[in-house]
């Protein structure tokens, strides 16, 4: 089971954090700070896995952004690495060649996509089509609403 996922920039700015086990704010901050330091200090050719506290950390850098997952002892490192890749692919498909700015300005979408893909720290569906279809449907619901809400506001509904 994945414990948490972090997205942060080369400058050490946190862009997204998702925790799958209840963790206190203080502990979260401490872990984020510590882990960012460890990962940012690593050189490009080093391996993507490391032992950290009692967890295994799997990370990969895409352009200026680090994707970093903490998994448990028995979990499979390589498949987690590809899980990160699949998430990046989903973001890319949704935003159309995604960049860090997309994630900054649309962090809530990045969360929604992640939630369709992972749940409770486990893979829910690995099919790109299914995940994107779900997101698309949600976006459609959103569009349906907009005009209606205008009508409502005018007291016509």
């Amino acid at each position: 089971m994945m414990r948490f996922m972090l997205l942060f920039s080369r400058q050490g700015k946190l862009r997204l954090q998702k925790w799958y086990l209840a963790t206190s704010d203080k502990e979260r901050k401490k872990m984020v700070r510590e882990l960012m330091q460890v990962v940012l200090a690593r050189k490009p050719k080093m391996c993507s896995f490391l032992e950290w506290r009692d967890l295994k950390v799997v990370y990969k850098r895409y352009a200026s952004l680090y994707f970093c997952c903490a998994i448990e002892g028995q979990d499979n490192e390589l498949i987690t690495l590809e899980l990160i890749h699949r998430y990046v692919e989903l973001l890319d498909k949704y935003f159309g060649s995604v960049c860090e700015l997309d994630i900054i300005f649309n962090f809530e979408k990045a969360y929604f996509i992640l939630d369709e893909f992972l749940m409770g720290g486990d893979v829910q569906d690995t099919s790109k089509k299914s995940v994107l279809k779900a997101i698309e449907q949600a976006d459609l619901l959103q569009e349906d609403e907009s005009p209606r809400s205008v009508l409502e506001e005018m007291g016509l509904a």
Partner: protein
Amino acid sequence: MPAVSKGDGMRGLAVFISDIRNCKSKEAEIKRINKELANIRSKFKGDKALDGYSKKKYVCKLLFIFLLGHDIDFGHMEAVNLLSSNKYTEKQIGYLFISVLVNSNSELIRLINNAIKNDLASRNPTFMCLALHCIANVGSREMGEAFAADIPRILVAGDSMDSVKQSAALCLLRLYKASPDLVPMGEWTARVVHLLNDQHMGVVTAAVSLITCLCKKNPDDFKTCVSLAVSRLSRIVSSASTDLQDYTYYFVPAPWLSVKLLRLLQCYPPPEDAAVKGRLVECLETVLNKAQEPPKSKKVQHSNAKNAILFETISLIIHYDSEPNLLVRACNQLGQFLQHRETNLRYLALESMCTLASSEFSHEAVKTHIDTVINALKTERDVSVRQRAADLLYAMCDRSNAKQIVSEMLRYLETADYAIREEIVLKVAILAEKYAVDYSWYVDTILNLIRIAGDYVSEEVWYRVLQIVTNRDDVQGYAAKTVFEALQAPACHENMVKVGGYILGEFGNLIAGDPRSSPPVQFSLLHSKFHLCSVATRALLLSTYIKFINLFPETKATIQGVLRAGSQLRNADVELQQRAVEYLTLSSVASTDVLATVLEEMPPFPERESSILAKLKRKKGPGAGSALDDGRRDPSSNDINGGMEPTPSTVSTPSPSADLLGLRAAPPPAAPPASAGAGNLLVDVFDGPAAQPSLGPTPEEAFLSPGPEDIGPPIPEADELLNKFVCKNNGVLFENQLLQIGVKSEFRQNLGRMYLFYGNKTSVQFQNFSPTVVHPGDLQTHILSGPAQPPASPRRPSSPWGSRLTQLAVQTKRVAAQVDGGAQVQQVLNIECLRDFLTPPLLSVRFRYGGAPQALTLKLPVTINKFFQPTEMAAQDFFQRWKQLSLPQQEAQKIFKANHPMDAEVTKAKLLGFGSALLDNVDPNPENFVGAGIIQTKALQVGCLLRLEPNAQAQMYRLTLRTSKEPVSRHLCELLAQQF
């Protein structure tokens, strides 16, 4: 899909984010944020009701501020409002806020429960999924209480959409992990298992995770999942790369599902059904074959996905540990990866090989890669990879390669990263001790350790070398000579001075014949280091000096001069001053005979678990124990390295609860009052003019009195009581005038549950009642092979679940601290057998009865045979297996006199109670009993065959046990022989 501004982009939010990004300094950013927070606060507090859109916008801003690392302490109510809205976008943002910000203990959970309930009942799949996500994300007990009963229904309902089923499966998994007792197991289990057959791959993917978790606690209820998982896996593995359409990832069919299925199979032993097993082996072989095929794509994603499956397959093969052919193939495959250009693969191969090294089938195959691994240790540029290489070397070490590995690790230590030096030091110390053929090599190795990495040599390590030198007279002369030489280096580490001081104080006489190391030379060499050392070391050296006065009377005058010096007698440090004063007086007042008695050579130390090992275990999980808790590899090591007889403890021997040498800061080798007479004499001696408080307990020694968490040795009858329970699970474990302890237990596979009933037989309340369970971990039995010893290091926290090093995980619940007179309290223990073990856990009960503290330590009736699964087999099979286990160390035999009347029916009942199946028509002699079974542990299974031959005339039995693990054979034989 250009969706960036899809729907209603929240302009206000985008503007705010831009503002923050344009801030030139941290201060400006904080200012902007505070301004925004004030704005949002006033909006939320304002009289005008906010519309949904504004609420959503402000809540999003709060989320963003939270992401920047600021604390958010308001907005929750607005989020709850949004979440209860009928509009999807508002609902979605409401849920997002809750799941990102809320901790499981938040008060708000109660507020949102209602909204969640509505959404779950809405039959709108999108809303249902949002609600399920939220439950899973919070995952608290409260959530479980509210929804655990509903979710299984949603999961197995015929009309649930696939996406809802997926979310329900993972949501249930999360709740089950958080509070298993809340998730009712019921008629739906069978339907959950059948989700493995679902048409929709996404549903299967989610369901496998759930089943994997559930079956660990209820293996029997979910047993049918094995064959379903195998057939699903087989279909995937044999499918063409395009068959599974969107579930194919870079030409690899369903890699996530495959990995999860292989994980699930690791919860069970190899399938018993031959057809299922055949199909599975075929799958595993196919995966191994595919690894050799040319890649279908050059993309790293392709090879990663493929290798993810491969590594999981290898894990399963290691888990089964029963197919030599597959194990060796796995090892060869990993061997190829060791030289792969991808760092990731080298890392994983080293890691995976570490577990492979502990399988008897593949240990030799792993050893063939030693040169590659040593090379990795030297040349890898990534410290985490080097670390794995060091772990693997440690795991593959045995007598044949110990010298090479130890010397490589020593060499590596010179350049090793600071972060891992201490661990390497511990590992070297352990290997050197474990595989020492001659102890001069051991002494050399430890002294080298101190020379190379003195700062990282913890006291456990140098205590240990002293202990071993003290206990083995064949190495004492060599040790004295070597430390003497080492001390001649102009700059030597303080730890070297400590070891040198102690050894010369005890055994300096062995090299005193050589004029180059005559007593005065030894003394002046040690004393030349004196002034540079810390207080603790100086205290130790003072003790060495008084020992010298006894060993070498010719040094008496010089040493007395040193002791008499103002810098000693008036030393500001109380410990040093006291020692100087007492030693000086002792040397001048006592006669030679008295001196010789008081300052006699230290008696041998009682054997117990190496505290180095305990330290390594504390320090680091992985790999630490794998090489050691495994006597199989080197059956002779027990005799050679563990042959030290435990000595009856004398007054000076530290109690078992003391740390290793019984010494903390300053080990005083002096003044062990060997007899009562000597003790009295001491008092007289110090009645003299220079009287100081006599050699009472120093502050250090106060450490050694058993602390609250220490556990005393088991009561003398503990073994006898334990024996009563070898063949039965229920009964009274212990009874005296105060207390009765009853046991009820059941075991299934490698799991067990035990109920302990503590009855207060008095009419007075027991206070501070605290029963605790510790498992000493019998690593020491492998290394030192002493007969069952009292626990070595009871200070270790009681075994956590899942630690790779523990052999037995015991989970206990606290019981009430008061037990009323005449009342009974119950304690439940959950027991998981992780690997084979020899010593039972200890149960320590402490309480106050009428103001007097009571303490009692018993052996918990958990013996390895409790994890027996009877196996029926035909005569032919039995003999075939019997022959397979023909190595002398696999067999244990005992001939003994009957202690009870020889009744065939009683014997049968006992053997069945012991756990094995009784096989009829196997032994040609119908008087004899033949049995078979498998010991189930999490890590491995041990097949056991047994034969009991009664001889009614002689009133004797002959018992023969054959298992694949030598210590297990011996142990079972011991256990069973006491039953007849």
